[in-house]
Every structure is written in structure tokens, then in C-alpha cells.
């Protein structure tokens, strides 16, 4: 069961979220939809993120992989280098740096896909058709809580509250 409410500005929206959280609502059940990013007070609707960590991990991982790759393949292929060492890390350092950055970029992008919810989208949850200038707050709640939550939203200043079922 979902309640879709509409707000005209971020301050009333913040007030509504605050009110809902005071009543025991969990941030995981709340979703804000908008055509631009909405600035809410810090701590109100924070989404924990590991993007920086995963970017660094991705970079370090691919970078190390590139070092092993260059080392192992240059040795494995028994290349005739005529005296040039099989593995010269300074000479190939640029390649390791670039592949580290590539790994970091990939890590960042993949984490974005995951954390934004694009990869694990719940097809059943209803999504509003966005209109410019309107902020939507979707609250997932039990049917028994529906009336109380709706009241709370109206009192906080929602211009419209709509009850929506899960999509098929």
C-alpha cells in the first residue's frame, strides 16, 4: 500500500518527512520524486553510500590486476626482448595508472547503478509522472496505518494525497 502526496516546495516536504519520522516511519519506506535534486536538511533523509570506497576499491583492484597482467603475460609468452627486462614497472607505470583510473570510473558507475536503485528496481512500486515544480513523496505503509499517515501528510501541508496499490 502506497500513499503518493504532492508538495509545492522543499520546506513543507521536509516538515512532512520530519512528522512522519516522528510517528515512527522508516527512511527506507519514504521516497521523494522530483525533476531536479531536492535539498533536504542533513540527516533527514540520508541514504548511506559506499561510492567513494567502492571507487577506490575498483581502482586499486583493476590497477593491481593490470600489474599482474603485464607481469604474467610478458613472462608467459616468452617474448624475445633482446635484453629489455620482461617487466619494467616504470616503463609501464602509465598503463597501470590509466587502468587504475578506468577501474575507479567503472567502480563509480557500477555503484551508481546499484545505489540509485536502477539495478534493483521494484517493478511493483508506483511511480509518479513527474511534473515540473512539484515534489512527490511516496510513503509505503500498512493498510491499517493508511488513514493516520494520510492525515499527517495533509496536516504537514501536502496539496494532494492519493492512495495507490502496488502495480501488477
Amino acid at each position: 500500500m502506497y500513499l503518493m502526496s504532492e508538495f509545492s516546495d522543499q520546506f513543507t516536504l521536509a516538515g512532512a518527512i520530519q512528522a512522519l519520522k516522528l510517528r515512527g516511519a522508516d527512511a527506507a519506506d519514504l521516497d521523494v520524486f522530483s525533476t531536479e535534486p531536492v535539498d533536504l536538511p542533513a540527516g533527514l533523509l540520508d541514504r548511506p553510500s559506499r561510492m567513494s570506497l567502492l571507487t577506490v576499491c575498483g581502482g586499486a583492484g583493476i590497477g593491481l590486476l593490470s600489474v599482474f597482467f603485464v607481469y604474467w603475460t610478458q613472462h608467459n609468452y616468452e617474448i624475445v626482448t633482446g635484453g629489455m627486462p620482461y617487466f619494467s614497472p616504470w616503463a609501464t607505470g602509465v598503463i597501470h595508472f590509466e587502468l587504475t583510473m578506468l577501474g575507479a570510473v567503472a567502480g563509480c558507475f557500477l555503484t551508481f547503478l546499484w545505489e540509485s536503485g536502477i539495478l534493483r528496481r521494484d517493478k511493483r512500486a508506483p511511480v509518479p509522472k513527474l511534473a515540473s515544480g512539484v515534489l512527490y513523496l511516496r510513503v509505503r505503509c500498512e493498510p491499517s496505518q493508511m488513514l493516520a499517515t494520510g492525515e499527517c501528510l495533509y496536516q504537514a501541508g501536502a496539496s494532494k494525497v492519493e492512495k495507490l496499490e502496488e502495480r501488477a
Partner: protein
Amino acid sequence: MATTLRTLPHDQIQEDTWRTLRNTSPQYVTAVLLTGSVTAWGLICWAYQISKGLGVVGKTRPTMWALYILNFVFWIGISHAGTLISAILRLTHAAWRKPVTRAAEAITVFCLMIGGLFPIIHLGRPWLFYWLIPYPNSRLIWPNFRSPLLWDLTAILTYLTGSMLFLYLPMIPDLGQLGLHTGGARGLLYRTLSLGWTGSDREWHALERAMKLMAGMILAVAVSVHTVVAWDFAMALAPMWHSTIFGPYFVVGAIFSGIAALLLIMAVIRKTMGLEAYIQPRHFENLAKLLFLMSLLWAYFTVAENLTVWYGNQPHEMAVFGARVRGRYAPFFWSMVICNFIVPCVLLGIRRLRSIKTAVISAVCVLAGMWLERFLIVIPTLSFPPLPSAWGTGYNATWVEISIAISTFAAMALLYLIFAKLFPIIAIWEYKYVPDE
């Protein structure tokens, strides 16, 4: 930390930006046909070159690298436009960048694509270019990672991937909006590319976080890419190439030419797409000031390089230096100084002269000057190798390579025209969003 003034209602912003996506003017069709035919001519010339051999171009011994490598460096240099505007200005919270970020990022991606094509065009056996890629094979052959050309390959692939993602990421919300309001095959394209963007706060948070990280990483990659391109030359023993200044020199030159290209393209899209309300005189003012600054920086590096060579008086290097400054290539050199230094400093340094028109004139001059600079880096050094018996008759470009070089400009324009028709050239959500500061 300036914020943009939101003077236009959101619906109008959307309408203005989407108008050019819907309506196709006869000028647009003409432009596409013109650039398309020039590009096709370039491809025909390339096919001719492959069938007959590289002898149809002007390269000889000792100038074994000439117009193609020159253009390669030139295009990779221009690709720094996006990096500067999107990455650096994003990191410094310069809000005036917002209407031009996507245009700049698109320049980066297409310039990289075109620039990356040139090393293949210049190969003696281009059908074997894939031998530079490490792939498992039964012949026990492997590329040489020690070679600066392999560094080039890695760097440009990384930069291309990074900048394509950097262009794509902020486009996702706009594609979502477009997908809602567009039908047919085009709407399907938008909806697929937008990955089902719903505009939820999770998505926005993740996007903004990703953009911040990407901006920093793209900056690091961009600096490294043009340094690596510089090291194609600096790692060689050739006179006036083997210089430690090449890395930073090329990066500065790249940002310089990137700003010029961005200025030019901004002026063009402002006029042709009716975006006068979005790309305002102050954008040109700021970019003009940046161009002026980069001109001074470029002049500093040029003086540093040339003064060191002249003072050192090494015979091998003085032969090249003399040809550049006094001899065969002197017209190129002094034109370059005028285009890169005198014109921008006069037109943009003197406040009364600074205007959109003079900014565009300076940008065109700088682009020509930077092309000349790449010419002067590649060709005089190769024309005057250490042993004078190899000095030869000099380099004369033929119609084949000139055609291919010109066709890449047309290809760039064509790619840009197609991009501007398919995707909104202004990042609408970014433009509308004014962060609390």
C-alpha cells in the same frame, strides 16, 4: 561561489531546449548534407590511401610523422574542453558553467573519437591495428607495453570511456523526461537510455555523488592523457622533442585549445538554436577571461622551452630551432605567436575590446594557432635529424592528407549536429537546480 539567477520559468526552459529536438530547419538539413559529404570524401581518400599505400601522402624519410599525428594531437587537445568546463568548474562550484556543460562534454567525446582514429589512419598497415591490443593468440606474440604508443592506447581508451560516462550520467534525468513526452522509436530510445529513471531521491543522491567523483577522476585522467600524448614525442631522442617540459606544455596547450573550441561551439549553438537567454554574454566574458589566462600560460611555456633550447646552443637542437624561428618554418612560427598570444591578449585583455564577437575571433585564431603549434612540434624536428645527410627537401602535404584532415572537421560537425538533434544540448535539470549555498 555565485549562483545562477533563475529568471525563466521551468516550462519555458524545457520548451526552449526541446524545440530544436522537434523542429528540423532547412539550414540544419543543408549542414548535415554538407558535412556528411565532406566526411564521405574523407573516407574515400582514406580508402584510396590504404589501397595505394602511404606514399600518396607527403610523408617521407625523415618526416615519417606528419599531418596525421599532428591532427591526432590537435583533436586530443581540443577534447580537454569538456574536462575543463565540466570537471574543473564543477569542482569549484562555478554555477555559470551550467548551460554549457553538456555541450562541452559532447565536444570531448567526439574529439576523442576523431582523434583516436588518426593513429589508425597513419599506420602503414592499418588493417593490423589490433595487434596493439593484448589478446590471447597462438602465435606467442604480444604488444610491447614499454612503448609510448601503448600508453597512448590505454590512456585514450580510458579517457574515452570516462568521458562517455561523464557525458551520459547527467543526461539520464533529461532522457527520462524526454522519454515521458516523446513517442515512437525516438521515445523508445530515450526511455531505454534513461534506464527507467524515476527521479527518486536515491537516484539523485547517487547521481550527484557519482558526478562529484567522476569530475575528480576525469580531471586526473585528462591531465594524464595529454601528458602521455606529449610523451610520444618527449620519450624520443629527436632534437627538441626530448624535453621534460612537453608533458605540462601539452596539457596547458590542450586546455587552451579546448576553451577556444568551446567558445566557438557555444557561439554557434547560441545563434542556431536560439539559446540567447541561456548562453549569455557573461558566459563568453568568463570563457574569454579564461582564454586570456591560458594564452599567458601558453606563452610562458613557449618562452621557457625556446629560451632553454636557444641558450643551450646544442648543434642538433639549434638546427631545428633555427628552422622554426628563422628558417623554413618561420612563417608558421610567427603566425602561431600572433594567433596564440598577440590576438587573444589584445582582444581579450583589453576590457573595452572584449565582446562576444572578439571572443569568437580570438577563439578561431587560437584554434588555428594551436594547429600551427602542433605542426611546429612534429615537422621541424623530424625534418632536421642529427645527421644532416637526411635533411632532405622538406615536407609537402598532398591532397590526400589535406582532404582527410579537413574531413575530420566535417565529421566533428556532423557528429555534433546529430547529437544536438537527438539530445538536449543544455542539461535542463542542472540548469534549473539551484543548490542551497
